């Protein structure tokens, strides 16, 4: 038994709350088996990948990856990306544990020292942001270790060290931010950073299409470490590749950063929590003239469209999902040629329609906090569901209007198949999403939105199946890409 209210006891409580609030267990009590199955699946794939890495090292005739400047650069780039991804997640997680969950002021009102509360919260955030990456990176590390490359296991301490540093920085940033803006605005900042990161990574991936090859090569060459391993800038990278001294130094550096923030933040943290807890969102004014509708369906549809439009993070969520439109735009404008020509855009649009439909219906299904209101009204029980489906389809088609018009102009012969694909995928996914909404960010502060990871996986599968089916219909040689040189 851990003695209350000591540090380990408080940490156990914090981790338990975080675990129960995580996507995996939010709606399912029995998660250990599916998680183990997925982990094993990942481990299998990682073993294949690790085998390729081992073969690559053998071809390079080096005993250890650290000898390769490109390996150091790759490690550094991964750590940098991870840092940004962790940071944006840590901001929203920090706001949640300070304000959203609503128990920080309660804990601070207890005789537990604020410093202990802060340290536990920061550690909790570090664990929650490290967990998914430890799972992903860990399986690769295990795979490398299975082939005798034990340096791969350094992924565990290094990812956790990075998470510690990121959690501390995010906490400092959030506490500072909460002194000047509301928790809602601070949360938006986190979302915006995540969005910018996603777009940045995507653009970087697309860069070779726009930037001449010699320029790209020069850019990467300039980032390579020098003959002495790149100095401090590559400290974490060397740690990730298992160099013992660099690993120890990285851990010490992360721990020092964590402790520094912890020591200097205890007082402002307590003040920040109190300020944040007292903050209530101002009722934002809406320009609405009061257009009363005669039919229940029209009223429910109007309400659902408003709830979709006002869902927190709606813009970022749509932009994320709509990144598929970028290659579609390239194909339709003739900037990018691929096998199948214009028909290559059709499955992409169908896939996007499925994902958007699933997202919108999940917003409505997960955010329907008061189903009893419509249930107490003199309307058929199925009407609210039908209105929600109609609103989701309407919102999806609104976003897809432009690519659909472009397709009509550029390749009208593909439109019937496209329309059939969109109809099929939308119907499938809105029906699925209504029963199994995907997990979304919280609908509001202090409220946990519903949603299941199974809905997300099934939804992506449905979108993929429909887009593949449509590809088979529209492409002149749909399986050409499977052939070598195809």
């Amino acid at each position: 038994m851990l003695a209350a209210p000591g540090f380990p006891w408080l940490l156990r409580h914090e981790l338990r709350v975080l675990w129960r609030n995580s996507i995996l267990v939010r709606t399912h009590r029995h998660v250990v088996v599916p998680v183990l199955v997925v982990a094993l699946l990942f481990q299998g794939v990682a073993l294949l990948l690790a085998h390729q890495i081992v073969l690559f090292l053998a071809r390079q005739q080096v005993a250890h990856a650290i000898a390769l400047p490109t390996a150091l650069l790759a490690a550094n780039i991964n750590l940098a990306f991870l840092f940004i991804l962790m940071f944006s997640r840590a901001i929203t997680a920090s706001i949640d544990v300070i304000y959203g969950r609503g128990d920080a002021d309660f804990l601070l009102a207890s005789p537990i020292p604020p410093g202990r509360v802060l340290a536990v919260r920061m550690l909790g955030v570090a664990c929650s942001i490290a967990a998914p990456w430890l799972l992903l990176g860990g399986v690769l590390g295990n795979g490398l270790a299975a082939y005798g490359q034990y340096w791969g296991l350094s992924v565990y301490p290094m990812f956790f060290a990075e998470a510690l540093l990121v959690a501390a920085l995010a906490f400092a940033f959030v506490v500072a931010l909460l002194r000047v803006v509301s928790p809602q605005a601070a949360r938006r900042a986190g979302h915006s950073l995540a969005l910018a990161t996603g777009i940045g990574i995507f653009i970087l991936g697309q860069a070779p299409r726009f930037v001449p090859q010699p320029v790209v090569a020069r850019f990467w060459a300039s980032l390579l470490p020098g003959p002495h391993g790149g100095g401090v800038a590559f400290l974490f990278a060397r740690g990730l590749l298992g160099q013992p001294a660099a690993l120890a130094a990285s851990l010490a550096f992360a721990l020092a950063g964590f402790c520094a923030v912890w020591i200097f933040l205890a007082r402002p943290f307590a003040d920040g929590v109190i300020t944040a807890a007292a903050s209530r969102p101002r009722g934002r004014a809406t320009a609405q003239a009061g257009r009363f509708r005669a039919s229940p369906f029209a009223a429910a549809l109007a309400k659902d469209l408003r709830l979709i439009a006002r869902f927190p993070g709606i813009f970022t969520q749509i932009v994320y999902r709509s990144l598929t439109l970028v290659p579609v735009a390239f194909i339709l404008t003739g900037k990018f040629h691929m096998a199948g020509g214009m028909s290559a855009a059709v499955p992409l649009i169908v896939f996007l329609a499925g994902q958007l439909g699933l997202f919108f219906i999940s917003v409505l299904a997960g955010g329907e906090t008061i189903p009893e209101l419509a249930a107490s009204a003199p309307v058929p029980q199925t009407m609210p569901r039908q209105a929600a489906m109609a609103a989701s389809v309407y919102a999806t088609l609104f976003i897809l209007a432009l690519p659909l018009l472009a397709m009509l102009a550029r390749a009208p012969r593909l439109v019937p198949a496209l329309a059939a694909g969109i109809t099929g995928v939308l119907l499938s996914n809105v029906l699925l999403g209504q029963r199994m909404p995907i997990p979304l960010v919280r609908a509001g502060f202090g409220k946990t939105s519903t949603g299941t990871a199974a809905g997300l996986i099934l939804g992506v599968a449905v979108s993929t199946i429909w887009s593949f089916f449509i590809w088979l219909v529209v492409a002149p040689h749909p399986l050409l890409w499977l052939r070598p040189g195809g």
Partner: protein
Amino acid sequence: MDGVNSRVIAEPALMVRGLSKSFGRKVVENLDLTIRPGEFYALLGPNGAGKTTTLRMVAGLTRPDAGSISVYGRDVLANPLGAKQIMAWVPDEPLLYDKLSPLEYLEFIAGLWRVEPKTARARADELLETLGLWPHRHERCEGFSRGMKQKTVLAGALIHKPQFLLLDEPLTGLDAAASRLVKELLRAETAKGAAIILTTHILEVAERLATRIGILSGGTLLAEGNLAALQAQAGLEHGTLEDVFLHLTTAQ
């Protein structure tokens, strides 16, 4: 319309016979209840007495295991939509969309009850004015206090001029001024002929507002009537409602 109104006045507002419901254990047992048009009925009882379950069954939200419910002659079980048309239900937790403004919320409710748009708009304006929500009609409800949310929900309940109101703890969280305002509004509704059934733990509210009071405990109606009748049933001639309530519920 006249035909409907005359039938509405001739029938009891609520007639419940042999109502039973269990969720593993008996929550409501063989309940009989009759409320007349224009009557203000307060349903009292300790926590877990079955008040909310009773109201939910009358509102058509929970199906009873046995018994019958009719509202102005409309069978709630056989014709739920017809019965819901003339009812409004206000639960203890405000049924409100945080992301909608009060005006948008009323627009939605009016649509659900098929209120003619022009009438609905005029009624919405009137209710928002009366309840002091007019300056906030375009603000989203997420920033509202508990009292403001409760008033918005009440406006929603009244927009379709229901003949029968089911109110579950409607005064929780209201300040003194808002509470008085709501009480006056409810009195005005009964004066116009609407019937109200209200559950509350504030005995003073029941004593001042209700024409009849029912005391429910363990899913059974222990006593019913005005204060004098309840005093007589409890054998406490000069006791307060609190004395009577505690005597009846603890004796049981």
